[in-house]
């Protein structure tokens, strides 16, 4: 992980190792984010999407997250290793959610209202 190798590609001029984001870019990203927030709220209030709602709103959220990461968090200029660790952390989150959720799906039918009722009633006595 030698530093000099990674930095050569970007050409950072007189600012040393800093990657300066142009103001118009920041402003554009901000207004896009604001627009997406408005869209997702409006859709939620006015468009009955049913089961697609989850996908749509999480999709919009992920686009927003992507914009924040890429531009506000300077990921487009980041070292590949730093991007990789964030990516891998998400892989581990996916593992965590995936395995646990799959397990829950497998046995959730064993949990019946009857069990709760029985416990509730017995505790009421």
């Amino acid at each position, binding site marked *: 992980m030698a530093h000099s190798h990674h930095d050569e590609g970007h050409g950072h001029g007189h600012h040393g190792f800093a990657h300066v984001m142009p103001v118009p870019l920041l402003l554009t990203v901000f207004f896009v984010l604001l627009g997406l927030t408005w869209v997702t709220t409006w859709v939620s209030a006015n468009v009955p999407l049913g089961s697609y709602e989850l996908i749509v709103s999480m999709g919009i959220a992920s686009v927003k997250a992507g914009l924040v990461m890429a531009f506000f968090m300077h990921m487009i200029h980041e070292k590949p290793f730093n991007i990789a660790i964030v990516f891998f952390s998400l892989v581990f989150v996916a593992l965590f*959610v995936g395995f646990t959720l799959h397990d829950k799906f497998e046995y959730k039918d064993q949990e019946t209202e009857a069990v709760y009722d029985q416990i509730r009633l017995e505790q009421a006595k």
Partner: protein
Amino acid sequence: MTTVTDHSHHGDAGKPSVGHEHDAHGGHGHGDHPDFVAHHFDTPEQQFDAGKLGIWLFLVTEILFFSGLFVAYTIYRTVHPEIFEYAHQFLNKYLGAINTGVLLFSSLTMAWGVRCAQLGKRWGLVNCLGLTLFCAAVFLGVKTFEYAEKYEKRLLWSGSFVSAPDLGKEAWGGKPAAHVLHVNMESDHATLNKRVEDDLGYIMKLWFWVLMLPLAMMLVGHWMNYRSLRSTGIGGLIAIIGIMAGIQTGLIIHHQLEPHGSEHGEVAHVEGDAHADPAKSGESDSELATDKADHEPKDAKTVEKELVAGNATETEIHQFDRAEQIPRNWSVFFSIYYFMTGLHAFHIIGGMIAITWLLVRAVNNEFHSLYFGPVDYVGLYWHLVDLIWIYLFPLLYLIH
């Protein structure tokens, strides 16, 4: 001192050779070692890269930290979707959207601040940080309004209705959550709003007095010519005014959306009516119950009154519970809501402290193109807090 002779052979070495190119005095000569570079680093760039990797790793820990909550949310929602469908109506999605916007704006000013730091623009940075701090405070203010409103409606976490072992008490008299909710939903909307406003008025008054602290810091800092104290005071002032502004925003939006606000009441009303009948029929059955004197079937309203007064019988309570169409354990939604937003708010507060620290250092003109790491790191943290909110907003406020 031995001089290292043969660096070029080790092109893949850990330390960059920048500092050594004109390094005639070996390892311990600190002649070219500027103050802003810590003793164990060789170059500003090495220091920056170490910090950057460090903060990214810290963000990774934050992602995994919050992932636990997202897993809990996902699992609970998968098994009990009805609770989420029912309970999310009590969150005001417009307030959520406004808060999202506020946080996004604070992200913009933070990113702009990083730019200013990189370019060595002292006052640009100070302004950006001040704005970020203000937005963070507004966010917390709006949250304060939301929490206060929910408190008055008794939209609380599960443990506030049943006993929790370490609290050693039965909150709300140990009544099942559904009763408390129903009673509150049924009560006059205007009264409820009045109570919310009273609470917030009290909170505002409290903050007003707390305002004296940063003011005092500013004054003392000014008189003693102690710049850091003065800037800390300004930071505190911004934060408190921001919170107060946030609370006011919440109140205004709430009033603006009054039709939406009363929607909640209506929902509960309709349900209350719908279940009056089963409640009635259930009531007439209990002849052998204690109060033999009371042979007249009670209507739902009477039961509510008795519930409020605390003298309804156990039998009645259970019948009342059964009559409700409110999903069982609905208050777990609010458990999750308070836990997630509370932990997020805790991170906001942490970020505000860090930003105030940056503000003080920015006023002291400590950042420049070779040393802007702290601004960058806090910025990354701040964006992550924003990212988490970007997901919390639809998950809690939007999805039906």
